[in-house]
């Protein structure tokens, strides 16, 4: 009996413990690697910069991650191609062929990535603006005004990518509005971008470097504005040449007065591994092989070099290169143009020690010719390779070079093109200034006049592969020489499509294995995956 009393009291004790001890009725709420937002309050400058810099990361991602904007701008254009590589691959379900031939589908990865990664930037800007508004991010006074303006211009810069690729996209500025976004027309998007920049540019910092490297200061914003005006006719139907010139002049005047920006005398300087101090870079996207570790973060060497080139640069990883220059484009270069010699990897390849390299499957010398048979068939050693960015000896599969999204040469050539199109003199001098660096040994060849730039293109368009050969030429292209100049200076920089569209060439000419397409291809379609999440979206015409 005594025992059972003991046991009963044990039971009562257990029951009391259970009800009394909240640990027995409370749910666990401890998070270990993440923090509940409410428990985090950023106040000092460092905290704020951890938050704000997150808004810039989508820029480097959308440009350079796998099937990013660089590919969307280059693989559909007349300078570069990824042909099927016998023994290596690069057929990949014909995605590169579809890019080349302008028959991409709404499900193609390249169509999707440009949208998703870019909108991530917009989202982040909207979120930060909302947090600043609510006081969650503790910034006040002038600092607040500047930060808000910077984020608005940054958001506009993401819209610039979307306006260029997809045109008719939703404009979303209110982070708290959870309604399904409504689609805007390309013109509305253009107007929004221009308005956002012009309204906020006055609040931006004029500091060129240090804290403002890789961020939107006043000069990066003017360059962006110039880009918008340069393409205004395409984006919104009305040309804005004088506005473009004025925006460029803002940058040029500051560069000249401060010496902070300017042309490098060495054409390779903006593309070196340690290029963060190049005065030519106005808006750079910083990379580092240790800190920026996304797969394919910036991997031109992996993407263009043949496997055997691993020995040339003592690369950590064996490249699986595919992308090369379209031979017709290479043929447009002046043989004395240093940009051809320095920015393309051509001819016999050597190991780091200086021994000749051989293609390992076929045993033939690894000797890049300016020959590519067709989009469907090519040997791994065929075609000139991308070499504009320095491939540092011994690097991993990621480059540490910063990406010069906007550079000073671009400002000069934008102004030149706008002057010419506006019927004003002075374009030749500006182009000459940029060319002089590339013709150091033949300064006479650097000189072009306004009249020269009015001539047609020297690009011999027309199908040129094993299936078919035609010579359409480029003489009929208005301001064709200006287009050629842009091609030579900005090759491999992820922008050719935009230039071709502005010069009316993108869908009208043929090259390599590409036939002229139709005008609807000047815009990419809205990705299928995106259409499935927002019924307000209407597909672009032609898809």
């Amino acid at each position, binding site marked *: 009996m005594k*025992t*059972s009393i003991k*046991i009963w009291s044990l039971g009562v004790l*257990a029951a009391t413990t259970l009800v009394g001890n909240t640990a*027995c009725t*409370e*749910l*666990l709420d401890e998070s270990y*690697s*993440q*923090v*509940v*937002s*409410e428990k*985090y309050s*950023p106040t000092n400058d*460092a905290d704020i*910069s951890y938050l704000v*810099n*997150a808004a810039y*990361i989508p820029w480097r991602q959308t440009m350079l991650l796998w099937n990013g904007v660089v590919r969307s701008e280059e693989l559909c254009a007349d300078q570069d191609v990824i042909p099927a*590589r016998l*023994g*290596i691959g690069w*057929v*990949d*379900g014909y*995605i590169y062929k579809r890019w080349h031939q302008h*028959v991409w*589908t*709404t*499900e193609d990865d390249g169509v999707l990535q440009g949208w*998703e990664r870019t909108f*991530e930037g917009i*989202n*982040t800007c909207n*979120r930060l603006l909302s947090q600043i508004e609510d006081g969650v991010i503790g910034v006040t006074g002038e600092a607040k005004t500047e930060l808000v303006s910077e984020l608005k211009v940054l958001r506009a810069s993401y819209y610039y990518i979307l306006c260029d690729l997809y045109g008719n996209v939703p404009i979303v500025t209110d982070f708290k*509005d959870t309604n399904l*976004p409504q689609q805007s027309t390309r013109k509305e998007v253009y107007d929004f971008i221009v308005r956002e920049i012009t309204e906020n540019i006055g609040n931006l910092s004029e500091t060129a470097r*240090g*804290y403002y*490297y890789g961020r939107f200061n006043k000069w990066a914003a003017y360059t962006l504005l110039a880009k918008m005006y340069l393409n205004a006719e395409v984006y919104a139907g009305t040309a804005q040449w004088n506005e473009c010139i004025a925006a460029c002049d803002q940058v040029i005047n500051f560069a000249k007065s401060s010496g902070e920006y300017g042309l490098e005398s060495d054409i390779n300087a903006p593309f070196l591994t340690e290029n*963060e101090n190049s005065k030519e870079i106005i808006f750079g996207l*910083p990379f*580092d*092989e*240790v*800190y920026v570790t996304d797969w394919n973060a910036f991997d031109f060497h992996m993407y263009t070099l043949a*496997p*055997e080139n*691993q020995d040339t640069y003592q*690369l950590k*990883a064996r490249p699986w290169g595919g992308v090369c220059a379209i031979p017709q484009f290479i043929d447009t270069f002046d043989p004395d143009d240093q940009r051809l010699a320095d920015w393309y990897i051509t001819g016999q390849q050597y190991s780091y020690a200086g021994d000749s390299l051989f293609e*390992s499957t076929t045993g033939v010398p690894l000797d890049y010719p300016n020959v590519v048979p067709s989009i469907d068939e090519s040997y791994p050693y065929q075609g000139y390779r991308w070499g504009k960015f320095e491939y540092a000896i011994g690097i*991993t599969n990621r480059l540490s070079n910063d990406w010069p999204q906007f550079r000073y040469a671009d400002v000069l050539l934008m102004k030149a093109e706008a002057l010419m199109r506006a019927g004003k003199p002075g374009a030749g001098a500006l182009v000459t200034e940029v060319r002089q660096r590339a013709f150091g040994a033949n300064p006479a060849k650097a000189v072009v006049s306004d009249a020269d730039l009015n001539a047609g293109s020297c690009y011999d368009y027309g199908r040129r592969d094993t299936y078919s050969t035609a010579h359409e030429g480029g003489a009929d292209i208005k301001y064709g020489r200006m287009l050629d100049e842009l091609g030579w200076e900005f090759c491999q920089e992820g922008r050719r499509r935009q230039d071709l569209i502005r010069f009316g060439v993108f869908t009208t000419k043929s090259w390599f294995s590409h036939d002229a397409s139709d005008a609807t291809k000047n815009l990419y379609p809205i990705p*299928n*995956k995106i259409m*499935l*999440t927002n*019924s307000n979206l209407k597909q672009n015409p032609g898809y």
Partner: protein
Amino acid sequence: MKHLLSLLTLLSVSFTAFAQHTITGEVEDQMGETVPGATVILKDNPTIGTITDLDGKFVLESPKANPVLVISFIGYATQEVATEEKKTVKIILHEDNQLLDEVVLIGYGTQRKGDVTSSVASVKADNFVKGSVKDVGQLIQGKVAGLAITNPSGDPSGGTQLRLRGTNTIGGANTNPLILIDGIPGDFSTVAPEDVESIDVLKDGSAAAIYGTRGTNGVILITTKAAKGSDINSVEYNGYISTSTIAKKLEMLSASEYAALYPDQNKGFDTDWQDEITRVPVSHVHNITAMGGNTKTNYIANINISQRQGILKRSNFDSFQGRAEINHRLFDDKVKLKFGILGKKTEANNTGSGGYDGYIFSQATRRNPTEPVKNEDGSWYENTSKFEYENPVSKIYEVDGNRKRTTLRMNGSITYNPIRDLTLQAVGSYERQNYNNGYSETLEHISSLRDGLSGWTTITASTSMEKLLELTARYEKEIKGHKFSVLGGYSYNETDYEEVYVNNYGFQDDYFGGWHNIGIGSALKDGLAGMSSSKATTNLIGFFGRATYAWRNRYLLMGALRYEGASQLWGTDNAWGLFPSVSLGWRLTEEKFMKNISWLNDLKFRAGYGVTGSQPSRSFLGVAMLKYGSYAYSNGSWIQTIVPASNANPDLKWEEKKETNIGIDWAVLDSRLSGTIDFYNRDVDGLIYEYAVPTPPNLYNTTIANGGTMRNRGIEILINAVAYRSKSFEWNTTVTFSYNKNELVSLNGSVFKTEYDYFNTGQVEYSGQVTDSHRVQVGESIGNFWGFKVVDVDDEGRWIYEDRNGNLVNYTDFTHAADDKKVIGNGLPNYYAGWNNTFTYKGWDLGITMRGAFDFQLINSARMNYENAKNSRFENRLTSVSDLVFGKHTLSKEVEPEFNSYYVEDGDYWKIDNISLGYNFGALGKYVKSLRLYGSVLNAFTFTGYKGIDPEVSTDGLTPGYDTRFRYPSTRSFTIGLNVKF
């Protein structure tokens, strides 16, 4: 002991009684074997009785002449016999097919099978699949209607997958059934298959609701062997040795065939790569169980050693485990204490950082057969310039990988019966698992030769802890035909998980580095090594109650309620949920008007309704969370950015399954033929899934939310029959059949709305490209394949497609637009069937288990990749590469691999899964109580039209039916085993 008892009985009888009538008799079973230990009592006076001796004989003194005897023995039907003066009675006991008195586990207690009102299936050890089984799941493959257990790979370290009554969640919630081992949560590999006594499956919602949250995907109760009954002191040994062969090889081109097709690529050697990576494996398993004690204190101890070899070289899996349980009764049996301890160590080889690298098999199939395994100098033949091309044999040998898991589980319970009908119980358990995985590649590995990751090495270590406390009080009473019980309880479950991961490379040589000395790689110095750690805790708290009532075994009622909170839902508005259930039964055969129907032994109607819930599998989804994002460059240095971790969803709540079950249990012809039929309807509301949402307004392009409703409807039939029975021969047969119709009823939740009534999911891979494989659509079943439909080829062997409007389109005109994709198959079988037979003839026993799945399709990834004439990477091809497509033309070289309907095949199969033949020698000599020798084959034959390796593939989640080319090939295994009892 028995002799002594008999003697005592005899003595007592002879001293106290006079004018006694002596009855002698002998008890045998149907096979003529004597039955020792059977209880014999007088019907009129149950206090007088005896038990049979070792020869099955008994002597009983009765005060009355010609008494009626009642003879009973576990496992046999109780018999009554009339006796005659001076005549020896011979009693033949029949195995008990009238299983109504059998005890069934129903969660926190047991119930007479006859009183069960919900859908519960029970499989005893006798009916288990025999042979080289990987885990406990494989023991009951094909044995339980509605429970689909698949064995998707031959990997010895892999396990089985199971699905009960269709696909019930679309991925955001826990998908595993609750597996309880003697009441403590675990999994199919917690205990050794040889240590299992019986398995009970709670199928419907009314049965599982007592487990609330965790019961949605069904509850499987595993009962391990325990010391019980009269024959308590024994030692049992089970052991077997087995080998296996690859169930079916992929028919790749031989060297000569390949060379004929690709003369440029002929390297002049002849290598069968599938042979190079496989071997004749030998596995052996030893299980020793000792039990003993008395009715007050008893114990069981078990040791299990297994060494398993996989069909692929260097895929080994060893385990060593022990379990001990002690039961102790005190205070006049009012208090019962139980202590259990389970320790387990498993060890396996790795050829990849996480386990066996599936890439090895796919590399062996794709590799050029004219290439040698090694160069003349003994180094591996590699071709580092070819993309995704690695010597599979080198990938086996140039690694040193080892993963170990150590489990320690302690559990105990106190049961107290203060009065006869009241049971108070406290159950506690604590389990800790340590996992260590070290993996290194040598400098001869492709990762060094090609990728510059010289000596790539990783270490993973994790600790997981789970503790459980359950307090229950149960009151049971029977008053004049009214039998009722009430149960109340509390349950607390907590988990804690910690993990550390490190990787490094840049080792100078193979001597000093590796995972035993990871720090010396240069990648660490260069800032390129990786390191991470994490920790997560969860808990689950439940209060529950249950009441049962039965009137004269005729009308049966059960109701249960569980109130439960899950930490995964912390921060949402709905962390606690209430889950009720009710079920009713009507035993018609207990009604007076049925008593005259003698052929009908049992007929019971059951109906039940129950609600169970599932919490999301991730925590902190209800609140906004911050995490570190990528590095950004700011003012000359790299800083870590801070970004939101997910879209917060405070509306998130339990996914709820509402299930109705109607069943019939029946038995006829002296219960020689019996069975059950169940009809069910499961509606799962508030499906938790990572839904695609637009960005903006959302931060991330997916949100975990409660979407729509999924319905599974089906029928399950089980028939047991003693098909033939004579003195020496018996044939028992069991047929199971199930049909399940899955339908996604809606995708819209009460708060969350989707834009469209479908979404795409899954991935098929072809030549390194991926595309969506499946579409989930309202009104359709889960598992629809979503791709282009080809109906023919043209004169050059190029596809002719059927477009969105049903028009035929040529290859060159087809734009491969998303809108032209169609439903081209479904990977979820609608029908499952099993047919199990046991034949016994004298000492022989033969078991044949067959099972099949029907009405579904498979995506044959091997054909999709290796049947294309276009071969820009010059990989090997299936011999079927030269087959005529649609009987017309070989596939054009212009055609690039793609996912289309030509690679979708019917997957229907019927497997003769397990054949086992044994001989029971019975007792041998003085010490051996029984001895059985057997041989068995697992995965013996497969009848199917499917062209791939094995139509039995994963049916998990939203993407069933994808037969990937990376899978570890299925095997057929042959076993010889021995069971001895001392």
